């Protein structure tokens, strides 16, 4: 049973069935990262997917731009409890990128410029659930939000949507990434409040 806090009334209640438990709405776009913002030129940017055989699929900026670009509108949920509704992105579906990748492994480790990592089951990247996003609100994605390109997995807490994405490595087992080794949940479903390990 919860302890009541004398005198606390809360604000006008945010009744919105798009808001997962424990989240509040924000209109800004907060920035959270563990270190300085890497500044990566699109000339030097490259994205890779590496499989268990060592086969590496590579896309440079031009190759990524040449692929089918999706417009994506989704709600996003940060583990620090803000939710931003109806955010609008542009990017390439991971279905498009994985169309030419053969792997028997079920898990992925996402690697970012700057050294950040986060683990995701492969199933959570496919079937229209995830993208490599290069645009936000019709503009190139700003560096502090992960530009030139970030992973976008809107149905998981937003730390899974690795900024400054540089590659995905197929993994046999679900090994923890950066925040997952630092006290946060291995999977991170906002609707189940999977915040902490």
């Amino acid at each position, binding site marked *: 049973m919860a302890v009541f806090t004398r005198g*606390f009334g809360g604000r006008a209640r945010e009744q919105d069935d798009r808001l997962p438990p424990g989240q509040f709405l*924000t209109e800004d776009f907060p920035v959270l990262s563990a270190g300085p913002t890497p500044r990566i030129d699109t000339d030097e940017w490259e994205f890779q997917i590496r499989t268990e055989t060592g086969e590496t699929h590579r896309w440079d900026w031009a190759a990524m731009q040449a692929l089918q670009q999706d417009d994506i509108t989704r709600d996003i949920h940060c583990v620090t409890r803000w939710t931003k509704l109806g955010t609008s992105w542009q990017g390439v579906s991971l279905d498009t990128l994985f169309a030419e990748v053969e792997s028997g492994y079920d898990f992925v480790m996402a690697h970012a410029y700057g050294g950040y990592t986060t683990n995701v089951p492969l199933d959570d990247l496919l079937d229209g659930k995830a993208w490599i996003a290069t645009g936000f609100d019709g503009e190139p994605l700003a560096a502090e939000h992960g530009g030139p390109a970030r992973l976008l997995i809107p149905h998981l807490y937003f730390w899974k949507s690795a900024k400054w994405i540089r590659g995905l490595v197929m993994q046999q087992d679900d090994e923890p990434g950066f925040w997952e080794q630092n006290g946060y949940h291995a999977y991170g479903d906002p609707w189940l409040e999977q915040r902490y390990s």
Partner: protein
Amino acid sequence: MRRTGHVDVWKAATVVAATQLTPSGRSLILDAPGWGGNLAGQHADVRLTAPDGYQAVRSYSIASADAGDRIEIAVDRVPDGEVSPFLVDAIEVGDQVEVRGPLGGWFVWRPEDTEPVLLIGGGSGIVPLMAMVRAHEAAGSTSPFRLVYSVRSPQDAFFADELAAATGVEVTWIYTRRAPDGWARPAGRLVATDLQALEVTGGEAPSVFVCGPTGFVEAVADTLVAIGHDPARIKTERFGGS
């Protein structure tokens, strides 16, 4: 030593002291039986429950790093906020909240760490850095500690008296809007020359912790990288909107 266990358990906590730090900031000391201590730099989730069952949870950095069941948080009022105005203006000694934690295993300083440390705080971003200063002093650590604290004016500083008396840390004040009379550095934002002027170490690269509002942290971290700090040795914690 990683104290991140049992974080799914909410613990009742009682406000045992409340001190106004600045016109907009207040320190609360919470007694949370079973807390059992935290590392310097960790944070706690604080949950408030209204009489009708409505709950609001926010994360606050912890200013203390003691082994016991007491936690100090220092809250700055967010205009139009839901929780911070209540904690700054309304809650009283004897009132109860719930806490969960300690949380976070990255933005932390451990007494066994021996490398030189540079702490850079903006506004209420001082809170987790204060925990590090206190832990460093309590442990009698000899690792060089330098704190750069950026505030608008002298009356906006949290923990000013304690920092003035602290041993084992060299404090550099940056006033962005109004400096004290006779202060050599004119009021203005923290810039590269401020950071270049710091002789943090005898040559060894320091571990750097930067905490503050997003714009402050972005600017400081970019500047540190530009003047040659290794990005891998810079840890950041940002709060507020972009």
